[in-house]
């Protein structure tokens, strides 16, 4: 088990290095550089050339990459030109906000998806299943940013039940009960928007797994043992159907990153996604590269997590 995990971790190292190179090269290939957008237009050409030289922007790309990578390894992603602060510091606050958003969304995704999937699969083709399946089709067809906008408009703007932006009420002392409550209040609507759309995949997947498992021979064996339906479902059908869902958990993280980019923008929630779009607009490349690299690493780790979970829950691929 440990050997397997360590081996998988070792494999991810070259993946991450490759990812960093691609991210860096792509950023370099984009038009303009850090000095194009934000410097004083009255500055003379000589002065700009001098600054270029000083910042190492005239070096060949591999030297620049080496310097950048050396910084990254030490947790230094450079300066943000927009905010005039170290990227690491800037991102850190945003990462925490996004973490809470993702956590609450994930809980909601499973809190909604598991019961709906189970009911839908157990009573397939009955009315209740048709209603749930109808919802999943609607969810598949609705882009999350449209849904988020409508939710914001109805519950935030018209009904005023939820705040329409930010991550916390200003003027509250961090750590107090009111502060946490306010944070949660700000999280609910964006999380719910992500979850209601994001969960439809889980519902559909679980439904088809259950329908599939229901027809397996070992379910007949269980019934032939004299097991009551409740036991047949709980011990045999659900447990076996939830396995691929559990294994999918790691990949769910990747989806959350994608989903939160739009949702954070719509709810002006100060998270990574929001920062990402803003930085692209302003050509704040040191922030963009940092964020892309971070999301990439998260995706790789998510896939790793899925592999590990699967090997833990499924005895057929258990590593000894």
């Amino acid at each position, binding site marked *: 088990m440990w050997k397997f995990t360590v081996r998988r971790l070792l494999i991810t190292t070259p993946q991450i290095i490759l990812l960093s190179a691609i991210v860096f090269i792509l950023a370099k290939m984009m038009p303009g550089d850090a000095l194009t957008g934000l410097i004083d237009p009255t500055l003379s050409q000589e002065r700009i050339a001098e600054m270029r030289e000083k910042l190492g922007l005239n070096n060949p790309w591999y030297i620049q990459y080496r310097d950048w990578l050396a910084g990254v390894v030490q947790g230094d992603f450079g300066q943000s030109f927009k905010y005039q602060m170290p990227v690491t510091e800037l991102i850190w606050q945003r990462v925490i906000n996004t973490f809470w958003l993702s956590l609450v969304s994930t809980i909601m995704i499973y809190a909604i998806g598991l019961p709906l999937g189970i009911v839908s699969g157990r009573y397939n083709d009955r009315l209740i299943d048709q209603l749930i399946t109808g919802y999943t089709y609607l969810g598949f067809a609705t882009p999350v940013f449209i849904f988020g906008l409508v939710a914001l408009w109805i519950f935030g703007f018209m009904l005023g039940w939820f705040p329409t932006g930010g991550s916390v009420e200003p003027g509250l002392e961090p750590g107090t009960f009111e502060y946490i409550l306010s944070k949660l209040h700000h999280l609910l609507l964006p999380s719910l928007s992500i979850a209601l759309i994001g969960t439809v995949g889980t519902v559909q997947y679980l439904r088809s797994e259950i329908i599939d498992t229901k027809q*397996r*021979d*070992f379910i*007949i*064996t*269980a*019934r*032939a*043992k*004299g*097991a*009551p*339906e409740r*036991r047949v479902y709980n*011990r*045999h059908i659900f*447990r*076996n159907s939830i*396995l691929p869902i559990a294994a999918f958990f790691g990949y769910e993280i990747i989806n959350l990153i994608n989903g939160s980019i739009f949702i954070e923008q719509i709810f002006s929630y100060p998270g990574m996604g929001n920062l990402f779009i803003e930085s692209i607009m302003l050509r704040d490349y040191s922030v963009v590269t940092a964020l892309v690299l971070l999301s990439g690493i998260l995706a790789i780790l998510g896939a790793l997590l899925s592999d590990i979970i699967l090997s833990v829950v*499924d*005895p*057929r691929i258990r590593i000894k």
Partner: protein
Amino acid sequence: MSNPLLEIKNLKTSFRIGEKYYAAVDDVSLNVNENEVLAIVGESGSGKSALAFSVMGLHNRAKIEGDIFFKGKNIANLPTKEMNKFRGNELSMIFQDPLTALNPLMEVGRQIDEVLILHKSNMPKSQRKKYIIELLERVEIPRPKHVYNQFPHELSGGMRQRVIIAIAIANQPELLIADEPTTALDVTIQAQILDLMRELKDDLNSGVVLITHDLGVVAEMADRVAVMYAGEIVEIADVDTLFNNPQHPYTRSLLSSIPLLDDAQDKLHVIHGIVPSLKHLPREGCRFSARIPWIEEDAHEEQPTLHEISPGHFVRCTCYKHFYFPDESKEDQNHDVAKS
């Protein structure tokens, strides 16, 4: 004679296709006594498994008419809750495919344990484990303590079938239904499994319904044989009579389609055609008539019934009196002409 262990009377099991119900088991009556092996033979689609599932109450959406008396109690259409007291307990089943009949995510020991938890709830856990290991020994699984914690995929097909047998006999059933228990196994393993089943049957003194299409298995195991065709029983007799003096055209065709080592025939007999699908089963007249077209129509009864031609030997329809095998060589010539 005392009451039979299992008495099936006029059982009719129908499945719904579209708006109508079609009977897969049509008016079947059978008895099974203690310590008796009744084999049910027939081609695929003849209704053997549907019959077994009806007795176990395992059909999901079938209409079951008629009576199934188990130890004098009618268990046909019994509510699931009532039925669960019998299933896995006095009445148990061995399945066809050991590769799929076990839950892949549960240790072997726990799968056997389940049937004990369900029917012997007052047995403490440590005792159950001891008993399960005894059971594994009883079905001749080597290293039972080790196998107790293994998963099905770590065992071979033969071993898995032994585990399934262990589950079936865990509560000393009085009636054991074996649905093609050796079909998915290779021949050497088949013989071992059959030996084991026979031993266990003698130990437990239980009745066995053995469903198979393998006449070799029948010859080895059965006391009596019921031959099914298209949902009906066409012939019942004790095993010696059936093999030595088969009467119904279907039984005779089946027997003459077995290759024999000491009888160097040029060609095996082939029953032309297939069992019609459920929806297209003939519901009137002799159901086998379509596959023996060279027999004249007046040889068949209009409403074929079972006739007792000697004590305990029943044959359906009157066509058996007029049946003969066609001259295969001549027939082949005809085929060749037709082809060219």
